[in-house]
């Protein structure tokens, strides 16, 4: 291809395009270096104990980020489980039972769902979901599943469960659209074959469609999880903003991103601000880690599928 690049204009054009790419590299470099530079004081002061410390108390200069890591992971996990079950089910409904009339309408509505901004979900969560959880949802869970530590303790409304539910709703459109695309790629011959052998639609889904799309679904799930970790505004509004670790999902918590929103502009000392930048750095590392792991997993499994 290089042989044909004889025009000066081509070289100029390639250079211009490359400069766009370099700007991108510059961006990421600046972001990472600013985060490290600003959090340096916190890193050198606390070292590794920043990650294992369970107390976050700026008044007493104690900065441990474990409660935020815990809140981030648990709320995202709740959201992920809900979104995978509900979204996966919806995707099966829309692909395998696509003679239904409402498929087109449902697709349109799901596209609309994807455009609703995070802050509107937060608003809805705060004034609709949280009161419902406080008055109906959580008391019901407590009455039926109260013997499990997850569903015990005082009922607040705001908390890890509310954050998880909101995250689940926000993940839904992505999971549904990706899983649908994957299921559409399952060869029609395989599906027809299963039906011809006498399988019911359920059995076809379980034995043919799902195994075929498994790899991609795993990738979609991981990717959504990575995105949920960094979701900020909606979570901030419903998680309760309390840096505590408790086994009950009803209790208020806090996430890495939401503590930044609520405390960043209030940080009064250098060390406080530096600790918050380190929280940002931790958030970046967790997000990057998850992104890379999911890419690697999908790559490895698809590689294996290719060889087999």
């Amino acid at each position, binding site marked *: 291809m290089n042989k044909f690049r004889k025009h000066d204009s081509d070289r100029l054009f390639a250079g211009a395009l490359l400069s766009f*790419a370099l700007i991108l590299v510059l*961006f990421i470099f600046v972001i990472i270096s600013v985060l490290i530079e600003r959090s340096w004081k916190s890193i050198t002061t606390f070292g590794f104990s920043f990650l294992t410390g369970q107390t976050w108390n700026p008044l007493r200069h104690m900065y441990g980020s474990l409660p935020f890591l815990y809140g981030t992971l648990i709320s995202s996990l709740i959201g992920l489980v809900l979104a995978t079950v509900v979204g996966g089910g919806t995707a099966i409904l829309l692909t395998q039972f696509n003679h239904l009339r409402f498929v087109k309408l449902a697709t349109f509505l799901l596209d609309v769902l994807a*455009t609703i901004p995070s802050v509107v979900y937060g608003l809805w969560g705060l004034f609709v979901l949280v009161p419902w959880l406080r008055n109906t949802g959580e008391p019901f869970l407590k009455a039926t599943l109260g013997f499990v530590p997850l569903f015990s303790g005082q009922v607040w409304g705001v908390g890890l469960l509310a954050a998880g539910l909101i995250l689940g709703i926000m993940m839904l459109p992505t999971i549904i659209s990706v899983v649908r695309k994957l299921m559409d790629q399952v060869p029609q011959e395989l599906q027809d074959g299963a039906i011809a052998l006498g399988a019911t639609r359920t059995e076809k889904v379980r034995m043919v469609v799902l195994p075929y799309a498994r790899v991609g679904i795993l990738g979609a799930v991981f990717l959504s999880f990575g995105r949920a970790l960094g979701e900020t505004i909606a979570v901030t509004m419903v998680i309760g903003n309390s840096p505590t670790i408790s086994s009950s999902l009803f209790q208020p918590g806090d996430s890495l991103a939401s503590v930044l929103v609520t405390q960043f502009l209030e940080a009064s000392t250098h060390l406080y601000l530096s600790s918050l930048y380190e929280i940002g750095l931790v958030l970046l590392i967790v997000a990057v880690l998850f992104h890379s792991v999911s890419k690697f997993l999908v790559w490895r499994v698809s590689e294996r599928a290719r060889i087999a």
Partner: protein
Amino acid sequence: MKEELFIRAIKKRKRRDQWFFVFLLVMGFFSLFPLFSVLYYVVSKGWPGLFAANDLISVFGTLEMTLFALLFAAPLGIGLGFYLYETRGTRTVTVIRFIAELLAGMPSILVGMVVYAIVVISTGTFSLFAGSVSLAVFVLPFLARETEDRLIASTSTLKEGALALGASNSRALLQMVLPVMKRPLLVAVLLGVIRAMGETAPLIFTSLGNNFWPAGVFSPASTLSLQIYFDALSPYTGVQAQAWAGALILIAMIMILFLVARWISKGESK
């Protein structure tokens, strides 16, 4: 006897199939229920508080900030998309692509913190400008990705044809591909506008919010998303009503853009 067992087994499988279908219907209902609930509450609670003076300030803040952000991000993002498209398969581009995906997957609040450290501190003030910068960085990877996807989807034969006729690479891209891609790229930019409009987190540290008309580009400004966030956390019901009104306006604006984008891409596919 044997036949009876056989029939019973079939009936069992059939029943299981029907129950599975019911389960799927319930899941489908759960998927769409939040949308209806959100829209219902936004409309019914937002309607009474509409047409307040503060909304107007936020609407202009949103429009201005998004416009500035896109002026900066659209050429850059589209250029980057072209770069990714042009250099597919080479080794350097896998690194660049990884970085682009990293930036796309990065929590937007981190962008806000970095813009705060650079722009807000160096200019000495929270500002509409700083907000625009953070929004631009936020939508950039999205625009690049959309551009690349749309280029891959529609134009490889077009470019090959131009090259076969002896056009240089840059000429093929700029004079053949770009004009054809005008509408798809416009749709990509509109989708970027939708994303930028609703974004809140990075603006808290950069634009801060403002109850009055901003004095200029270098002064704090409110957007609809910021107004919704701050008003929602207020203890006063009157202020909370403002949050709902803001949400109604924001969703209406986003829906209009969304329908326009859909309309354009539909015209394209015909």
